[in-house]
């Protein structure tokens, strides 16, 4: 195959294609693990895919990219996620 020269308009996969979107946050989701039942709903519904599951199945938020939308807090059945004001 022809090697396509760099002069052709292409993009390559990259983490943070829009930058460190964690800086966009106004409110920050904080998980109160004591309340967490590991139901994983936050993990399923985080619209940004910024919640990982630990080995022990506890959710962990990737604050580098979490945009602070609050969906996780909203879907958490035990109100284990609190949205707190970002301190900047």
């Amino acid at each position, binding site marked *: 195959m022809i090697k396509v020269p760099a002069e052709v*308009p*292409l*993009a*390559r*996969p*990259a*983490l*943070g*294609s*829009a*930058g*460190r*979107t*964690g800086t*966009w*946050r106004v409110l920050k989701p904080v998980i109160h693990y004591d309340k967490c039942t590991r139901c994983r709903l936050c993990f*399923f*519904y*985080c*619209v*940004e*895919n*910024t919640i990982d599951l630990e080995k022990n199945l506890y959710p962990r938020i*990737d604050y*580098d*990219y979490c*945009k*602070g*939308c*609050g*969906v996780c*807090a*909203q*879907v958490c059945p035990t109100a284990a996620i609190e*949205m707190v004001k970002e301190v900047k």
Partner: protein
Amino acid sequence: MMLMRGNAACPGCPIPRELDALLEVTGEKTVLVVPASCSTVIMGDSRGMPSRVPVVHSAFAASPAIASGLKSALEARGEKATVVVWAGDGGTGDIGFASLSGAAERNEDILYVCYDNEAYMNTGIQRSGLTPFGAWTTTTPSGKREWKKPVPQLIAEHGVPYVATASIAYLFDYQAKVRKAKDITGFRYIHLLSPCPPGWRHDSSLTVEVAKLAVETGIWPLYEIERGKFRLTSISKTLTDKKKRKPVTEYLKLQGRFANLTQEQIKEIQDEVDRMWDEFSKLEG
């Protein structure tokens, strides 16, 4: 994670998750065809893209045709892959409708997913044919006067092998439909209601809640039409009984775009939903 973090979607926008859930099922051998839309922007820029599968950007009206060509070429070289169009409601039901209808009529072997945020969001919330009755947009300042264009039904009328509706709030249902669609040959169509916090004027945290209420109120029925056979799916199966459905106001009241609906209009909407479900009962029964 097939769609990487840190992309340009608005906070609370479901699109990244919707895409990721899709790609989880279709896998690495997927080509995404993305027409002009919010998803274009979400797909990054010349410095990098969030997708781990090839993305073919497309002119607004061109994606069903580009996908037809891609699939033909992949087939010619013996490559098994799923070609997915990922298009907004405007690209699907307005400017691209002839192209879509053409691909459906030809029964092209592609999976077309319309993520329907019910307006042109990328250009800043203008009415589309799929904007619902009564909704405010910047081009319908006092609410849209026409009804939402029934695109899934229109595609089904083309006699394609698979048509389904889906919702981000019912992820398993959505992914099950993608899985089914993936294994069918021919034209497959999934229509995904996709809330948009700035466009629908709801808090970014309510995305899933709003999507759920759309289904629970019956405004957004979950169903599939497999080779002509209609079937309600997931929770919608239980909603043919009007009493089981929440009143539409529960859905409408969360969204600023419906803030100026009159009581009459709300009733019209409720009646229309009820009428639709009556038909479903017939189809199912």
